[in-house]
């Protein structure tokens, strides 16, 4: 039997959670936020190049989901995956260095912003083909099942990815094969400039998932506690052998799709409205209102985050580029497996 958690509303004001944990969540989201604000700056300085997709506004999703995972669980991110990577516990040094294209980066600098990998952390990218990681995640879940591993695979993707055939094929396979996988749809309302109403005839993504027989529902993706709670319940259900689930997280990106976006497709009002519901702002307000976060503490957290970011920049700046003579390293494996 699949656990139906769609009815249990997890209100930030009602949930009983350890305050230390909530502060931890707050700090994780802040790390991502400040890191990316800095990335935007570094992009204009041309330290970071290529495509840079910021996660700003969506931090509650990655941070909430990752709380439900164990180290041996696997994660597949999108090209908007700095948040996934940092929340998953990749070192900020390596992530920053990757964006600088340095050999100390998580993918030797070869992948850049869109292809952050860290197999030690079971973090499988960073995939820049929209919906391209879904079949991979299904396959990894299949391997886990075949090897009787109790691990969960989590696969992130945007609501835009839902229109791709790979979404359809992957959900069907996952359900047919009863796989231990959690699909996480980051529904931020737009695929580049394409609003959900233009990309999906059924705009409730969780309903689409239900049509494959998956347990699925939608949560407020701006509420980190709600995301964590839903993800935990789904992960438990998956570990119990109840098969695949999909969690739709309703969220919003505050910045453009990438650094090139002029955002003609949406109104400033709409952006402002969502900003007022920002996941960090919201949690901060709640902590403050409940006297759980003093001004000093906030400064301390901000300082710690700033220090970590500065350190990451120093690390990245100081790191060497990959030698051109190593260009062919890893096109093929060197020995037999």
């Amino acid at each position, binding site marked *: 039997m699949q656990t139906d958690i769609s009815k249990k509303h997890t209100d930030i004001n009602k949930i009983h959670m350890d305050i230390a944990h909530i502060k931890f969540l707050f700090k994780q989201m802040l790390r991502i936020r400040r890191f990316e604000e800095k990335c935007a700056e570094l992009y204009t300085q041309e330290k970071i190049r290529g495509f840079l997709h910021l996660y700003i506004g969506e931090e509650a999703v990655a941070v909430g989901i990752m709380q439900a995972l164990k180290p041996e669980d696997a994660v597949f991110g999108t090209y908007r995956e700095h948040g996934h990577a940092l929340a998953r516990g990749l070192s900020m040094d390596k992530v920053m260095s990757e964006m600088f294209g340095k050999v100390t980066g998580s993918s030797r600098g070869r992948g*850049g912003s869109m292809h952050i990998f860290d197999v030690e952390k079971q973090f499988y990218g960073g995939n*820049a083909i929209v919906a391209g990681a879904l079949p991979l995640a299904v396959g990894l879940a299949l391997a886990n099942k075949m090897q009787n591993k109790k691990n969960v695979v989590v696969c992130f993707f945007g609501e835009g990815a839902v229109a791709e055939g790979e979404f359809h094929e992957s959900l069907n396979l996952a359900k047919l094969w009863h796989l231990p996988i959690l699909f996480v749809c980051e529904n931020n309302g737009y695929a580049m400039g394409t609003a959900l109403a233009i990309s999906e005839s059924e705009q409730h993504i969780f309903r689409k998932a239900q049509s494959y027989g998956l347990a699925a529902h939608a949560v407020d993706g701006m509420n980190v506690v709600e995301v964590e709670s839903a993800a935990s319940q789904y992960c438990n259900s998956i570990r119990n052998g109840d098969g695949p689930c999909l969690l739709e997280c309703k969220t919003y990106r505050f910045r453009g*799709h990438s650094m090139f976006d002029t955002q003609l497709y949406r109104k400033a009002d709409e952006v402002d409205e969502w900003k007022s519901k920002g996941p960090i702002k919201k949690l901060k307000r709640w902590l403050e209102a409940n006297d759980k976060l003093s001004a000093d503490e906030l400064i301390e957290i901000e300082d710690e985050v700033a220090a970590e970011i500065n350190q990451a920049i120093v690390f990245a700046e100081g790191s060497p580029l990959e030698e051109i003579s190593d260009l062919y390293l890893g096109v093929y494996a060197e020995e037999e497996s």
Partner: protein
Amino acid sequence: MKSQTLTYREALRIAIEEAMNADERVVLLGEDVGNYGGCYAVSKGLSETFGSNRIIDTPLSESGFVGAGIGAAIGGMRPIVEIMTVNFSLLALDQIVNNAATIRHMSGNQVSIPLVIRMATGAGKQLAAQHSHSFENWYAHVPGIKVLAPATVADARYMLGMALKDPNPVMFFEHVMLYNESAAIPMPEDCPDMCSALVRQTGTDISLVTYGGSLPKALEAARQLAQQNVSVEVIDLRSLRPLDTGTLFRSVEKTHRLIVVDEGWRTGSLAGELCALVAENCFWSLDAPPIRVCSEEVPIPYPKHLEDAVTPQVAKIVEAVLGLLKQEIVS
């Protein structure tokens, strides 16, 4: 009418606009061509002019909307389908190969598919291994479609219109490094037929053949070589299918030497096809082996120094030319 200076991007936009004004059956469809203005901003503003019925934003579903473009062509429209980049076109390849390229012949010449599929291609913007490749050679392999690679602003301005008038499915490749190039536009009558190669610079010592994003590099290499008294003939293929072998062979028969520059991976590249064609047909005219400057055979990496190391560069082309001239003297 005075000659205009345009960017490659603007030239494409004007060409689309012109075609849409001239023929109601022309529509543009693809991801983010409307509200966003096109991922490389080619169609910016067009949805205001023509409305969302003719500038159609599609969901992310390359196979679906490319197939729909093919079906719309069968149904009497003249669609321009934009795929954001050639990398994503793999998702639509079945529709292009098994339907667009095949149905006319397989149905006994009953079904017409007048369609243009445009897409960006190539490296240079540090977009890494899933966004930087060149698969023009694959399309050039397929009978039933035509494949164009406009390398100049003038060709961007006029070849799209020609492609739309062609009754066959035409693949149209726009190299990402060309969009910001600008140049004065000639009169339409000065733009030759879309399927002819053009000698962009005449020369006598060697034929340097290329297309698309590598043309500016080839021309720069030729300029540098001229300073060393090497006279390079630069040929821009423009059409990758059909290939204008006449122009190619005439040039090689004059210069007796061939180098092909091609951003695709070397093995199985279009450059290989050209070398093979020349070896097969101009063998007795050749004074040296036909060679190629291609991309290194690795997934294209993100950092600038590696991306540059992978793709053909002016210095590599110059070196290849000088090496080839030397090799001949030695033998």
